[in-house]
């Protein structure tokens, strides 16, 4: 080492360099005005936190509090708890989203080849995200403050405690998210399947988040009457932080919990610090390229009978292609998580719609809405994936005598096969919840199954018009939004036609509610698919 650099080596903190670089990466869109970006953003957020939000909440919260004096305190407590639970998940998922940036994968090799230590990379990447996560705190903490203010006049100390808890929660979620994403990145370097697991994890977390939101909305009374139910979630970190805030509002709010204030404070301080310390010390486990070429995923011969059945069902012309599509689809864990998401959300709708409709008319209406929602969710969650990672493969299809049709039709058939399982599951749930007979169940199954590929026509058509080759492509977002807009009339049609025609018989009710939806979707979907395939055939 040359002497002139030796002093630099001792002085320079590489975690700081990594942290600065992390900030640069996250603010690359403002790379010419980074300082101004931060000054401007923080000024606005401070203005929101300390002037706009208090004024806004003070304008209506005291009235709501006065009107609902009896239940206001426990409701606010529950809202703060659930709000912080969801916030924890959202912040935790953010670092996971960056895991899949394939182009940055190779940079790890350059980093590890430099004198920087693994723990410096870890600490730097974690700290570098904090200025941006502070935005989240300054956006959301004033909402918590706004809800509490009508109950008690907050002192400066209480303000500090609330903001400290919000910072603690957000930074801890970021720490856990960074750890999981680093571990996944480490796994990704070893095997591509880890990337898939990561995506599945995000889907699962999303499902958990949706369940939490639904649980708060639909079970608020049960939770309020039985607060001890939340003891099952004592391990969930956001509760440690929210308990501290709740104690400030009213110590009695923690009475039914296992975690008292001292346990909550202890966990909220000790666990994050302990995890941070251990991760710093053990960072070399995550930031290493050891074992990089060891793992390849080999396929087993499992499910040979299943595929042979699909081959026979799809026929000689499409059998092989459908099997390829199905293997590609089912070997991605993220896609399995997506199917679970479809089953979960439509299954919940099945419970919700059947529990709110008590007469036969209502039941037919609820099953019609369920069919439409099932198609919509399947189409958005699964139909839009047709061209994911096919940027190069598309040319193989185009060059072959089957052309693009081979790809599109085989994917559609693949969706039909998957639709059979989705339809079967939802039919069972719907039959159980709504207590319908066998004939009604068979009719429901047939209509549900028929509507899935029909609704897929428009999502696949949209993808043909404007293909998205990656899940994060901007085309994916725009196509999904267009898809949702197109489906809006389909959701409204059953209710509208039911009111307009007021049919008397069951058969007429089904026809009036579903025939226009089917015709509408077949027409729109076929036109989109036809134009889309024409356009896709000209892709260069």
């Amino acid at each position, binding site marked *: 080492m040359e002497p002139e650099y030796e002093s630099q080596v001792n002085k*320079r903190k*590489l975690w700081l*360099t990594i942290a600065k670089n992390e900030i640069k990466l996250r603010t690359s869109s403002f790379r010419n005005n980074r300082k101004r970006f931060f000054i401007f953003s923080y000024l606005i957020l401070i203005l929101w936190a300390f002037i706009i939000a208090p004024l806004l909440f003070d304008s209506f919260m005291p009235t709501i509090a006065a009107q609902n004096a009896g239940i206001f305190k426990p409701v606010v407590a529950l809202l703060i708890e659930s709000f912080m639970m969801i916030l924890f998940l959202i912040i935790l998922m953010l670092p996971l989203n960056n895991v899949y940036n394939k*182009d940055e994968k190779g940079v790890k090799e*350059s980093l590890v080849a430099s*004198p920087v230590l693994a723990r410096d990379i870890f600490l730097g990447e974690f700290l570098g995200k904090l200025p941006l996560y502070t935005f989240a705190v300054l956006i959301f903490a004033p909402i918590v403050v706004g809800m509490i203010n009508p109950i008690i006049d907050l002192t400066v100390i209480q303000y500090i405690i609330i903001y400290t808890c919000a910072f603690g929660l957000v930074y801890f979620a970021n720490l856990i998210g960074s750890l999981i994403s680093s571990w996944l990145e480490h796994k990704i370097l070893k095997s591509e399947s880890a990337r898939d697991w990561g995506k599945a994890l995000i889907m699962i977390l999303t499902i958990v988040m949706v369940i939490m939101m639904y649980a708060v909305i639909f079970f608020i009374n049960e939770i309020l009457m039985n607060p001890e139910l939340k003891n099952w979630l004592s391990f969930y970190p956001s509760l440690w932080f929210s308990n501290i805030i709740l104690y400030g509002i009213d110590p009695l709010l923690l009475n039914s919990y296992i975690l008292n204030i001292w346990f909550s404070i202890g966990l909220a301080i000790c666990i994050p610090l302990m995890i941070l310390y251990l991760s710093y010390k053990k960072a070399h486990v995550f930031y*290493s390229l050891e074992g990089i*070429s060891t793992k390849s995923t080999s396929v087993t011969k499992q499910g040979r009978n299943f595929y042979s059945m699909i081959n026979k069902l799809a026929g000689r012309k499409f059998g092989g292609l459908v099997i390829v599509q199905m293997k590609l689809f089912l070997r991605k864990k993220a896609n399995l998580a997506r199917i679970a998401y479809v089953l979960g959300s439509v299954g919940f709708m099945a419970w919700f719609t059947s529990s709110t409709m008590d007469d036969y008319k209502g039941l037919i209406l609820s099953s019609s809405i369920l069919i439409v929602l099932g198609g919509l969710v399947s189409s958005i969650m699964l139909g839009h994936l047709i061209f994911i990672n096919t940027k190069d493969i598309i040319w193989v299809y185009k060059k072959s005598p089957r052309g693009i049709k081979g790809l599109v039709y085989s994917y559609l058939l693949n969706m039909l096969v998957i639709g059979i399982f989705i339809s079967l599951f939802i039919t069972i749930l719907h039959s159980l919840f709504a207590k319908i007979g066998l004939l009604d169940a068979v009719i429901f199954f047939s209509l549900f199954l028929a509507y899935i590929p029909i609704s897929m026509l428009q999502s696949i058509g949209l993808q043909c018009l404007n293909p998205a080759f990656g899940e994060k492509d901007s085309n994916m977002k725009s196509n999904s939004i267009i898809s949702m807009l197109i489906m809006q009339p389909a959701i409204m049609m059953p209710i509208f036609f039911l009111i307009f025609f007021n049919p008397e018989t069951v058969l007429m009710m089904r026809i009036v509610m579903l025939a226009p939806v089917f015709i509408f979707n077949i027409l729109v979907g076929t036109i989109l698919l036809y134009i889309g395939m024409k356009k896709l055939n000209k892709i260069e």
Partner: protein
Amino acid sequence: MESYAIRTHELTKSFGSILAVNKLNLKIPYGKTYGLLGPNGAGKTTTIRMLNGIISSNSGEIYITDKDIKSHEKYVKMISGFLPESPGLYQKLSAREFLIFIGELYYLPKSVIISRVEELLELFGLSERANDLLEGYSRGMKQKVCLCAALIQDPQIIYLDEPTSNLDPAIARMVKDLIKELVVRADKTIFICTHQLDVAQELCDQIGIINNGILKIEGSPTEIIENTGAKNLEDAYLKVMGVSKMEDLLSWRENGEFNKKVVTSGKGKVKKRKRVVV
């Protein structure tokens, strides 16, 4: 004991049941260019990663400028420059920002970083687009940025994994000339992994051919050609590796479905294949 820039003794690395590098012994003198040749999966990248301290060996020793890599890892990293096989870059940084970042990782003083970055950008013809985000760069341009990053701290030993594979002929020529200059004028030691035999023959003083983790043969290009009784380095490489006979390569045409002629309907659709004699 004679001093070497790079010396390995019985270097071994396995990944699970796969033996990637098997008892590799290298002695590379100062100021020489060494080329490690071999097919995909031969163990070249694993070797270069071990020499850089990116991954550790299962057994054996590595001495860089006579210092054991295990006890002098930071020093070894300071004096080594590394061009990875796939250009690893932060897509959301500009070339200038990325190079400054790499310079800081090597503890270079700010003033040195700024001047080195500008020199390298100029040398590789990247000055005009130095403030563009790397996500907009072509593969060749990214390769150039990686080369700049490998050279930023003016390393004593430079490891290059496929240095010219993504470059256009003019830049590839420039890189080859640069490698020669670095050896002749700056007395750098250069370790190259490549598939390109012409690059190895032109640049390397010494060549090693590796397959399945085992070093098959080593010597100067001329020695290797002579020892294998080959006409040129390509011929020598093929002799060392062994190749399939041409008749084996096309044997599939003799039998099977492909001897059937495609018959189409009037609309151009495939109707059937008729068997024909080839």
